[in-house]
């Protein structure tokens, strides 16, 4: 029904086989591919800490700067441990008759993964850790939705459960041999699995927690945009690992993924900047970096299958689309998504996911669709988007409801006024004199 357009699925399949030592059909190890994947793993971790944590930290008020960094750091640690214990298995294990939906609990604690286990041409240990970094950044992105008001304990609980119930299954659906991948949804590096998923969950959290105290009346400008620029820059650089690493090899597809990532980020940064310039009269640094991130998000699902011109188009569309979503749409709907995880990640992810169905076509410079025509492919992409949104909305809502009942989601008013740094962590961000 659809053509496999990259080595990815094959490699994944081999990865799964690698988990079953008795079936050892492993490819031979490629030092070159392994070298790249070791690096790519480092790059994707770099995206979350320090990248994303800085991007976010700069945007909050100074009394909450540490809380955001703490959240990203704690998520990194917690997700790593959960991934090792059961997450990897849930996502990439063999779910048997239920394999369309999850990977099961067959092999917990990475049992069976040795120094010699292979996943395609790279050690399985590397594949496992690379995927772990995706399972880290996705929940960390959600932080942007509820920043400056959520209890640390509730946040930690939420993320642990969310990984288990939301991330791992969706990851399995698309990359682990589940139904979305089978159906020919193209999502090379995680537009749906990572960005739409996190962006929507962030919006759900923003709505359930309610607006920050004073939102709409008091000004809540970013307290240190220098940090945000550093963070966005690190995200950009690290994204090469995210997208070109998703090829799981150092080859022509990885190279093209690198190129299109760069192109889309640049195009989107310019698009947002010029849009703002036209609309408001001045270009802003928060604008251009938001644009770059929007472009990176949008090219993510497409990065294994579009060409340079497709990347230019996707980038420009994402820059404009996310500019609209994070400014006009947000204002119109009135929700308080503190750091625009919906406006940038969900909106950018949706734009990218749909346009992947367009620009992957050979006729448009891409390397091929999984379905026969562009319209069929776009429909498939839409199904991927819609089912992810539906699932993550419902599941995120339920998890938050339960946690609210058990420990409460939001800090009390005085703590919010004082700032989360002192109230949650007994620390202050800046003691400059």
């Amino acid at each position, binding site marked *: 029904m659809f053509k496999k357009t990259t080595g990815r699925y094959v490699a994944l399949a081999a990865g799964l086989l690698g988990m079953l030592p008795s079936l050892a059909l492993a490819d031979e190890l490629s030092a070159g591919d392994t070298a790249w994947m070791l690096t790519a793993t480092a790059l994707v971790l770099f995206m979350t800490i320090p990248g994303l944590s800085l991007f976010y930290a700069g945007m909050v008020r100074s009394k909450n700067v540490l809380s955001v960094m703490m959240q990203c750091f704690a998520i990194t640690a917690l997700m790593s441990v959960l991934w090792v214990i059961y997450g990897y298995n849930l996502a990439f294990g063999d779910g048997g008759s239920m394999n369309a939906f999850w990977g099961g609990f067959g092999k917990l604690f990475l049992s069976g993964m040795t120094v010699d286990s292979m996943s395609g041409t790279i050690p399985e240990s590397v594949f496992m850790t690379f995927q772990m970094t995706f399972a880290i950044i996705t929940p960390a992105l959600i932080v942007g939705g509820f920043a400056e008001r959520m209890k640390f304990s509730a946040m930690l609980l939420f993320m642990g459960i969310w990984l288990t119930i939301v991330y791992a299954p969706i990851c399995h659906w698309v990359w682990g041999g589940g139904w979305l991948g089978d159906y020919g949804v193209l999502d090379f590096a995680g537009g749906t699995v990572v960005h739409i998923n996190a962006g929507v969950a962030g919006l759900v959290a923003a709505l359930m927690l309610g607006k920050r105290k*004073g939102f709409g*009346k*008091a000004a809540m400008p970013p307290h240190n945009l220098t940090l945000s620029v550093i963070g966005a820059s690190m995200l950009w650089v690290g994204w090469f690992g995210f997208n070109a690493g998703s090829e799981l090899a150092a080859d022509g597809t990885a190279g093209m993924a690198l190129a299109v990532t760069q192109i889309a980020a640049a195009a989107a940064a310019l698009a947002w900047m010029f849009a703002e310039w036209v609309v408001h009269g001045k270009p802003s640094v928060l604008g251009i970096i938001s644009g770059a991130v929007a472009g990176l998000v949008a090219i993510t699902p497409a990065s294994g299958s579009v060409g340079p011109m497709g990347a230019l188009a996707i980038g420009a569309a994402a820059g404009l689309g996310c500019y609209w979503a994070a400014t006009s749409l947000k204002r119109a709907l009135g929700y308080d998504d503190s750091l625009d995880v919906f406006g940038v990640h969900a909106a950018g992810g949706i734009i990218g996911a749909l346009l992947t169905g367009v620009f992957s076509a050979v006729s448009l410079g891409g390397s091929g669709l999984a379905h026969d025509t562009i319209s069929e492919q776009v429909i498939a992409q839409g199904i991927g988007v819609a089912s992810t949104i539906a699932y993550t909305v419902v599941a995120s809502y339920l998890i938050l409801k339960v946690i609210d009942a058990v420990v409460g989601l939001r800090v009390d008013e005085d703590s919010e*006024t*004082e700032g989360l740094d*002192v109230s949650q*962590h*007994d*620390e*202050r961000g800046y003691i400059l004199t």
Partner: protein
Amino acid sequence: MKLVTAIIKPFKLDDVRQALHEVGVAGVTVSEVKGFGRQKGHTELYRGAEYTVDFLPKLKLETAVRVEMVEQVVEAIQKAAVTGKMGDGKIFIASLEEAIRIRTGETGREAL
């Protein structure tokens, strides 16, 4: 002329500004200060070392006003800044002998 100085909680600035505006005060100068008083500070914790931060961030507002406005101004500040919890701050009134507007050289009430 009198100089009215108010120490307030930082998040009350907007309300107090608004209240001053309403009674016709055109100019205010604000400083970030640290306050020690009855209100207790918080504890900080760094690598097991706990210690108490006994000062609290406050804002100091200074506004020079005509004598006849003092009462109104004080009342406006007090109403806008009060929360009823410890640490709401103080208002001080002192006498001012002269005021000069640098731009024009005007003095006295004209300068305010």
